[in-house]
């Protein structure tokens, strides 16, 4: 694991580019992205379809590697990690919330959290169940702990997914269109959760299409055609 002197930001992108080769030719998903996100920031990444939001997220979470450039997170050069160490690092440092929840359908809600803790193994075994239940309480669905995901509404499943993302107490939470499948009322509730988490010290980065006026983001980064075209900071 390569550590670097990251005095410029908790999360840092330096000249990050990503392109894809296909039968149709080369497609530049990201072009020379320079970005720095501080610890504890609540950031929204916005842009039209095909602007590179998901690709940026994949760089951030290590799901994909840049074709060029560096991604450094909490002093770790993520792009240098091999797959095995990356998985463990990701589980301990980044909680991911997917658009379609992606809960394991054959495990109960609490078991989904226990599985996440089991895979990363940073939470002592004796504490896991208690922690899982506490997280479910925090997100407001502890009464559904022993139910299978299919028994829950979309909003409840997304809360469960957030709880799972927090299972290993990662400093960073990344959410890809977390309210894309939810009704407006539930979406607001989920967004409020993110605000609470920011308040507790987490860095929360959300890729979204949603109306930004209802949410208190510290920063809104706009992407277009793979480049950062807007970066509003210190929003009220």
């Amino acid at each position, binding site marked *: 694991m390569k550590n670097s002197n990251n005095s410029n930001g908790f999360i840092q992108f330096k000249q990050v580019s990503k392109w894809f080769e296909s*039968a149709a030719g080369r497609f530049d998903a990201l072009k020379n992205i320079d970005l720095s996100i501080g610890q504890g920031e609540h950031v929204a990444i916005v842009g039209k379809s095909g602007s590179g939001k998901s690709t940026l997220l994949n760089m951030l979470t290590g799901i994909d590697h840049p074709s060029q450039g560096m991604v450094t997170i909490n002093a770790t050069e993520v792009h240098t990690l091999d*797959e095995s160490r990356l*998985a463990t690092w990701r*589980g301990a440092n980044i909680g991911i919330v997917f658009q379609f929840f*992606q809960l394991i359908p054959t*495990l109960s809600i609490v*078991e989904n959290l226990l*599985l996440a803790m089991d*895979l990363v193994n940073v939470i002592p075994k004796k504490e896991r169940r208690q922690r899982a239940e506490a997280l479910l309480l925090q997100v407001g669905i502890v009464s559904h702990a022993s139910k299978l995901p299919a028994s829950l509404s979309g909003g409840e499943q997304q809360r469960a997914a957030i709880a799972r*993302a927090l299972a290993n107490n990662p400093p960073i939470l990344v959410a890809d269109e977390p309210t894309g499948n939810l009704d407006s009322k539930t979406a607001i509730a989920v967004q409020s959760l993110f605000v609470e988490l920011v308040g507790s010290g987490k860095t929360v980065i959300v890729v979204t299409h949603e109306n930004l006026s209802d949410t208190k983001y510290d920063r809104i980064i706009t992407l277009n055609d793979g480049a950062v075209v807007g970066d509003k900071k210190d929003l009220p």
Partner: protein
Amino acid sequence: MNIKLKKALSDLLTYPGRTALVILALVIGLWGVGSILVSYAILKSDLNENYTRTHPAHVILTSKDFDRLDLTDFRKRPEIESAEFRDLSFQRIEVYPDQWLPMWVFGVEDFNNFNLAQFYKEEGNKVPDVGSMLIERNGQLVSDLKVGSLPRVRVGSKMIEVPVTGINFDPAQAPATQDAFIYTYVDKKTYTEITGEVVNQRLIFRLKNVTTKQEIQAATNIILDDFSSLGIRVDTVNIPKPDEHPHQFQLNTLLALQGSIGFLAFLMGAVLVSQLMSAILAQQVRQIGVLKAIGGSRWQVLKIYLAMVLLFGAVSSIIAIPLAVMSGYAFADFVAVTINFEILTTTLPVVIYFYLIAAGLLLPILLSLPALLKGVNISVQDALADYGIRQDTYGNEAGLAAKLPLSNRMLLAFRNTMRRKRRLGITVATMALGVAIFSTGFNVREAIAVFLAENRDSMKYDVQVVLKNQILLEQALVPFSSVNNISRVEAWNGGRGRLQTGRISTTNGIGIVALPYDTDLATWDVIEGRWLQASGETEIVMNQLAAETLGNPTVGEYYPIDIKGKLLNAKLVGIVKEFEIAKIYIDKDQYDALVNPEHLVNSLMFVAADKDYRQVIALKKDIENAIAPSDLDILYVLSQAERAEIIFNHLNIILILIVFLSLLVLVVSALGMASATGINIMERTREIGVLRAIGATPKMIYSMFVIEGMVVSIASILLGIIIAWPLSILASAFFGDLILGNGIPFDFAFSYSGFGITLTVTLIFGWLASRIPARRAIAVSTREAIAYE
């Protein structure tokens, strides 16, 4: 419970039908191979153990001069382990009213004290009273003889009643049920009373420190030389294959058959697990992505799916292993009754359980490992981007299918079949293998049946009467002058002789059959050289077993043949294939010229005028009735139907097993196809929803999947039939060598009925395999199908 194990278990329980199907296939396979392993462990040693613990004789000599031999001195020879005068005479016994069978009468020296060619008390007396006899227990299965019976025994022209006072068990003898003999045991006094023969004319002995026939032959030659110096002329020398039961060949065939087919069934079950795991991994590809995204390493994800395979293996083993032990013992019991020996292995070696457990757990893992590794190696990004079938698997061209004159529906069904080429390949290959083996089973059965029919049809006579002694033909025919339905009678002769080759010495009394070279009462399947002709020189033909016994002599070469002490230089002109003991055939005139100037005969071949089955049976009965008051000393009377039945009885168990095991393999492969089809349909649930959303009716969806299933079935049948051809040839050759010996194959035979059954069964399986999941698919609503992940 460990959470990873919980996930594995939950995933399997989510589709209980599919899981049950795969477990069933694995259970069948493991049960099959487990039964084989268990019965093999028992039979491999038990038959031989039964035989060897009787201390069977290494050498059997007959001579009229043994009164010159001091048996006590003979037993003291350093090479002799044990020796005894155990007389043997061939008579006839009435087993049911008016039904007679050949009877072997053994004259035993001392029932209380013998350690050679032992037998054991089963019921009644251990030692027969004077004037009474023991019968071997297997004879009770072909008669109504029991302790207390008073059957008639025919000795020459004499008819006497000999009470049965005991039943014994003689595992060294070929079973009476198959060879249609009754074995009886009497003391020396009773022997003379019954047979009228002088005792102590048959010497049996065991040698020390010998293992091969060559060693036994060498030691025997020395003994014969010593006998010669004592003035003892030995008439026959018989050296059986050392320490091998007469029906070992049957057992070897059964075990070979069991072993190969059973293992295949198990292998196919394990392949099925591998296929299922591929499908599960394909279905759960996004789950794998998520697991890796939330912190799971490749190894951790692999453990979950390995746990699934282990669960399959464990559940299957728990069900199959006890069943295998039970059926293994049951099959061994069945074989033991059929071949007449006792099961001695009461406790299976622990290593057998170890093998079974290892097979049940390890083999599915080994076969699934490539698929598992491939599945978990997918990158997070690719996994999360996967929504089922990727567009690029179709390629960029419409393909050959688009050029065929097919309806859109047929085209879609055909192209759908080709989507997952690897899975399709495995499904078709597995099903084709099942079809091939099933078809091969029928073809081998047909080959054996054709052989039996040819064997039966090759003999044009209807009843054979064999005398114990050679007499004038006119004298032999007298009793039959008033028997109706006889078209003609031909007389043959037979006896024992010796052939000396450059490589080995005497043949130990090989059978000689002297018959008219141009007889039309029998035809032989000549496999090398030709049949006898009027060539002017002395010719012989031998069957394949005789050739094997004599070290495969060369056709066209001359060999000295010793018949009744007279040496004849005969040219070997041909080798024939038949299911008989080792025999040499010689022209009757040449035989008479050499050793039989009075033209005596001992074998009458009766041809019926009316060949209707019932008339032939009546003829045999009339012949028996004609013999009864006569003074003919009969060895046996046999109709062709009985002869065919005896041969069939030897092979029947094998025929049954072939078809049963073949069906087992086909069932396993069909289960595989059903599972694969179910997985295919499940993976395409969303696609089904889209089709229905754009106008496809449930009936159209259903027919599309059924067509897909039938395409796979037809492809499997075609491939299976192609594979079955060389497989059947190999299998026929294999069983031919096992049963007939000396590398002689059964001729390949194609079973039309077998083909029809294979075709029908496979198409039905294919239809069921696609119909059942297809019905489930159309039961899901369009909304649910589109929302399916």
